[in-house]
């Protein structure tokens, strides 16, 4: 499989490290109720179909990526940098 890194272009999957559901980006506030933290840390959907997960371009630009893909067809719909250039104010 290949991922189209927004910085590096299409690359072989062996350059990437898989992490898990993109829900991990939605960190609760420090004083959020315990249930919110439990959900954030431990509860994940396992959809047949569209899903978003996190990949790290470890042997590449070191960007964390949010990959939108279909678990049934294996189609990759989008690969976005977790830190958009706007947010990071950088130049990629």
């Amino acid at each position, binding site marked *: 499989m290949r991922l189209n890194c927004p910085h590096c272009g299409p690359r072989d999957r*062996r*350059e990437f490290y898989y992490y898990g559901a993109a829900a991990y980006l939605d960190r609760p506030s420090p004083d959020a109720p315990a249930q919110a933290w439990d959900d954030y840390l431990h509860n994940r959907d396992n959809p047949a179909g569209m899903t978003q997960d996190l990949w790290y371009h470890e*042997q*590449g*630009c070191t960007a964390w990526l949010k990959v939108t893909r279909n678990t049934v067809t294996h189609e990759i719909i989008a690969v976005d940098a977790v830190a958009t250039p706007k947010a990071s*104010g*950088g130049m*990629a």
Partner: protein
Amino acid sequence: MPDLIAKPALGAAPLTIAGTTLSENGATQITAIAPYPGSQAALAQALRPLGLTFPAPNQFTEHGDVRLAWSGRDQAFLIGGEAPADLPAAVTDQSDAWVSLQIAGPQARAVLARYVPLDLRAASRGQSLRSALNHLPLLLMVEAPDSYTLMTFRSMARTAWAELHEAMIKVEARLALT
């Protein structure tokens, strides 16, 4: 003058196999430049004395013997020159962190195809790509379609050399068939 003896990362003599040469580049100054958020304009201004612009991803810019090679997200390596003072960027000495190898010749691309998962069909001077050399981290710079600079961690220099050497020998053995 330092009283301590400086050693190269590897100290290997060049190898030529199948008309293709693997060699170790001499130590040079490498400075990582990581611009802070929102500093594009100030950085461009600060780099002007070097005759360089901050490279786009997968590219290097060069002026004379000095180049600025994209090396990752929000980061480039200034190679072969002194970084200007007071850049609006994090500036880190990386000179001793890398071993720099050169592979050049008609089989260079065939040798790299044994380890590097990059499509180098359209390789052209000015490309600066992060990838892997088998299991090693890699910054690959295209000097010419048949000449590549390969930078990997200094501590892994022996593995990098040994693996490239092995691939060169196998490529040569294949060539002898035809």
